[in-house]
């Protein structure tokens, strides 16, 4: 993964438009956030292999970036994205990593299911 190239990510998102895609979407402040008093509570949500289809997908911001995917009757949204990669399996991986190298948010799209 490397720092987001906004135009390249925009083109990558567009490759998934109109197709049935598998989504991994996640945000977390870590299972020990409350234990280490970094935060009042540990917060995490994720969906792995949600199946979605979107008609318009856009990356916005000057870094960290936001991505919004406009679905038929809904939205997929992520904020705080810093890094990206198209991996060897053609999946688009977007992540927000903090200065300690920790992942805070991830949005990933694939035409095949993500491994469990």
């Amino acid at each position: 993964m490397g720092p987001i190239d906004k135009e390249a990510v925009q083109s990558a998102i567009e490759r998934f438009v109109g197709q049935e895609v598998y989504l991994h979407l996640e945000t977390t402040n870590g299972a020990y956030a409350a234990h280490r008093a970094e935060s009042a509570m540990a917060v995490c949500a994720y969906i792995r292999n949600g199946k979605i289809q979107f008609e318009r997908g856009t990356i916005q911001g000057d870094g960290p970036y936001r991505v919004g995917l406009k679905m038929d009757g809904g939205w997929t949204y992520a904020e705080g994205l810093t890094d990206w990669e198209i991996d060897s399996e053609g999946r688009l991986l977007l992540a927000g990593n903090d200065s300690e190298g920790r992942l805070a948010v991830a949005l990933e799209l694939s035409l095949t299911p993500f491994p469990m």
Partner: protein
Amino acid sequence: MERHVLVVYPHPDDESFGKAGTLALYTAAGTPVTLICGTLGQMGRNMGKPFFANRETLPVLREQELRDACDVLGIRDLRLLRLRDKTLEFEDPEVLADHVEKVIREVNPSLVMTFYPKHGVHPDHNALAEATVRAVARLPKDERPIVYGSPVTQNAREVLGPPDVVNDVSSVLDTKMGAIRAHKSQSQAMLEGVQKRMESDPEFKEQYSKFMTQEAFWIVPID
């Protein structure tokens, strides 16, 4: 001397932080150690510093890190359940216990190590600790191994009292640190922070050194 030690933790690295010295002492004494690792730590937040992993490469890297740590510690029997990180509490607890019971019956341990139930902080720690206790409780009373629990909660000593066992692991400290370093994606940022703080804070250095050379365990009551 223990006959066989069975170690049951949900994430790669759980066996190393706070326990690697004790495991190194067992293997050095010739006691076979079997490690059940419940997940591949797929949802870990640490990706290395600077980060070298991503959400999709992390499980592959962490499996290798765990195998490397086992090599360092002399653990030759590693069982991966390959369940999904953060989901153990949602699995059927009887099925989780079945996984542990099967290995208990196979290796016949005199000692089982896991997290202390309800004191694990991470829900996976609590779920697998409870499953382990459930598995041990299925055995006839006179055949049950002792269960060492590791609490993570800040108030463990207040609630549970003093530890039942405190191992001085200073003789195997290098091995312990080697195991922790093997979990590079998870330990790199932490070790860097500790190193920096030790350079400027002698009091912290002393406390931390003591913390690293002593490993405490609480015997978990069964049923």
